[in-house]
């Protein structure tokens, strides 16, 4: 009997595999290249070739190749988009619907790989993994990035959990990378326990949602939700399940009240790792959040005229809830940053605040999507994407400067930054650019980005007036945040350098790197690059809600 059925099964198997797999694998090429680079790194270590070819070169080359592939894919996407009414073509499913390959995937892939290149370059300059530990460090870095790239394109609750785990677990090790230091191991322990707890909660929520809806595919959620009558215990369960999934993402985004790990982990971790986590994992988590939240806002098939009673409430409560969490995060992050003396810790609180601003964009997206205003929903998403890109440069810039300065003065305390401007003027000016951009002052990128995020949120106030209040809170926060960012600048530029402090003499390569990272902040504030990036962000958001 077995023999009888096995032949058609294998035939079927062969057919299935040859039908779609080559195309899927081709689209998955950037991730595969990274996987290959990981293996190359380990082989290099095994064969001892890492003595001649240091790990960072292997990692850099691999990342660049992956970047090239995704860039190629992006160009293909743009070509498609230039043809009228072919928007649907650029959205495709990979691996039988486990992954989605659309504008946003392409955008975030480029985002993550560009960022990875910059981070690897930074680690080469700052030398945080020495040659011996290089292969391990880059293996972890690339492994985490593969996870983030999966997060970006996930379309299945399993992939969601798997990708979050793949992104998180190597990060735990990265935080504890300086394994001889007490602070580092403490940070790693806190991070791993907190992360595991959050992941557990998320998995439990995933099980509830999947069980209740009878599907694990994210793009089916909206449809299934509209079939349910959302009342009583069913409603409560779906709320709890959704909320638990969001808790897992909120952990990755370090949103209040799931931010506790963030300052501790960033203070204990090397600044390079802090920069990596603050940008890459936040970016990926936002991509995932946008996908999940977009589904929860309601199905595309249901026109807004026919309200689905429970669903309507779900969208509103979710949007307002997320908005409140966002406002709380930005307020808490900014206020708690006041009393910090360690610059990495201060920046950690600042990242909490920034995640809060961006979350407002997502919450407005849910509202707009729910109200049937797809254009506004897309504007919200592309605003968040724009913000993330600017945030990439300004936050990486700040962390890079912290790392490079640490190599000179062996300290990460703000008090030790006094009078640094006289010794390393370029680094300090770049720091000023980054910090002013983080505050959101024109004509720097941070201002434009903040505007792009908050303007659609304000517009969503027409749908629900709470959004106006949230924008008000966010703007008030930018006023607050000025004080503590200025504190760093005052220390660097105005205070005198106490005698006996180590002298900072950055290399010209360091300066070049810092300039390279901070110039885009200027360009994204006042140059046609704004148009280019916003176009890319819009392209990315375009096929999100079809």
């Amino acid at each position: 009997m077995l023999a009888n059925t096995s032949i058609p099964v294998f035939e079927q198997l062969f057919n299935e595999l040859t039908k779609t797999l080559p195309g899927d694998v081709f689209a998955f090429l950037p991730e595969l290249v990274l996987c290959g680079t990981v293996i190359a790194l380990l082989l290099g270590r095994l064969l001892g070739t890492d003595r001649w070819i240091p790990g960072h070169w292997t990692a850099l080359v691999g990342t660049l190749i992956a970047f090239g592939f995704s860039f190629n894919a992006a160009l293909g996407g743009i070509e498609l988009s230039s043809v009228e009414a072919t928007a649907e073509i650029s959205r495709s499913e990979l691996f039988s619907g486990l992954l989605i390959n659309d504008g946003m995937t392409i955008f975030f892939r480029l985002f993550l790989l560009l960022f990875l290149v910059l981070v690897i370059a930074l680690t080469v300059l700052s030398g945080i993994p020495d040659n011996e530990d290089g292969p391990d460090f880059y293996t972890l870095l690339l492994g985490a990035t593969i996870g983030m790239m999966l997060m970006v394109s996930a379309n299945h609750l399993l992939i969601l959990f798997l990708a979050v785990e793949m992104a998180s677990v190597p990060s735990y090790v990265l935080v504890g990378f300086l394994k001889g230091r007490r602070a580092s191991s403490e940070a790693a322990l806190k991070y791993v326990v907190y992360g595991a707890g959050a992941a557990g909660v998320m998995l439990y929520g995933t099980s509830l949602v999947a069980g209740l809806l009878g599907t694990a595919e994210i793009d089916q959620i909206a449809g299934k939700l509209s079939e349910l009558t959302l009342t009583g215990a069913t409603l409560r369960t779906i709320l709890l399940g959704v909320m638990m999934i969001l808790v897992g993402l909120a952990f990755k985004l370090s949103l209040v009240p799931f931010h506790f790990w963030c300052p501790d982990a960033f203070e204990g971790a090397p600044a390079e790792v802090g920069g990596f986590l603050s940008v890459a994992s936040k970016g990926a988590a936002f991509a995932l959040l946008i996908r999940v939240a977009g589904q929860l806002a309601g199905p595309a098939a249901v026109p807004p005229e026919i309200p689905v009673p429970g669903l309507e409430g779900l969208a509103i409560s979710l949007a307002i809830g997320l908005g409140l969490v966002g406002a709380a995060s930005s307020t808490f992050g900014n206020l708690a940053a006041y009393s910090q003396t360690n610059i990495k810790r201060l920046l950690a609180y600042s990242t909490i605040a920034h995640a809060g601003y961006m979350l407002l964009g997502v919450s407005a997206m849910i509202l707009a999507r729910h109200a049937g205003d797809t254009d506004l929903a897309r504007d919200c998403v592309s605003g968040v994407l724009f913000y993330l890109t600017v945030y990439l440069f300004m936050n990486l810039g700040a962390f890079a400067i912290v790392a490079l300065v640490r190599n000179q003065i062996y300290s990460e305390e703000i008090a030790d930054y006094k009078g640094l401007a006289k010794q390393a003027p370029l680094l300090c000016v770049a720091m000023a650019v980054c910090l002013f951009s983080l505050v959101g002052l024109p004509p720097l990128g941070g201002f434009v980005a903040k505007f792009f995020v908050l303007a659609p949120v304000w517009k969503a106030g027409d749908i629900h007036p709470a959004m106006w209040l949230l924008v008000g809170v966010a703007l008030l926060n930018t006023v607050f945040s000025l004080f503590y960012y200025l504190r760093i600048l005052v220390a660097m530029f105005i205070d005198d350098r106490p005698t006996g402090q180590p002298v900072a003499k950055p290399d010209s390569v360091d300066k070049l790197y810092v300039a390279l990272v901070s110039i885009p902040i200027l360009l994204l504030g006042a140059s046609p690059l704004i148009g280019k990036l916003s176009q890319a962000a819009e392209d990315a958001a375009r096929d999100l809600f079809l």
Partner: protein
Amino acid sequence: MSNQPLFWIFALLTCGGAVGVVISQNIVRMAFSLIVSLGSTAGLFFLLEADFVGATQLLVYVGGTLVLLIFGVMLTASGPFQQIRVSPGETFLGAAVGLLLLSVIAFTVIDVEWDTLNAARTEASPGAESGNTARAIGLRLVGIPADHEIGVHEGRGGRTGYLLPFEIVSIHLLVVLVGAAYLARAKRRVADGSTGGEN
């Protein structure tokens, strides 16, 4: 055949083991309770006709992960910290939060009328052929629904293949093991002074 008595036995053992882990103060006893709990969970899986998952649970969880944990217990339990007492206030707080959480879940998940919900949605319960899911799972990995599943699913029709996670998880394991090995091994030479500030 009614599985009811077996269910009660396994369920009690599972819950009892879990509660035992929580209330015990001795790390070795905790480990033992954990083994009981996870082992009986495998029993529940068998009752749910998920034999392959049950077997994996026994092999990987009880056989692998737990051994790892016990290994950790033995490595760290030397010295006076074998029993680290928690103050009664914290115990009380923990119990309160636990009960709160449990009541929230009971108030939501348990309260749902699952039977009517599922009956309304699909006529036929897609129970697998009793006790033999290994083959079905194997087929699903490459996206071929088992015979009894065809027609049950909507959407992608149960054609979701799990080849990608199956493969990608191997990379994940590789990366993770490299990380674990990095942390576990001693550094071969003294750390460079420039790699960190004063601690």
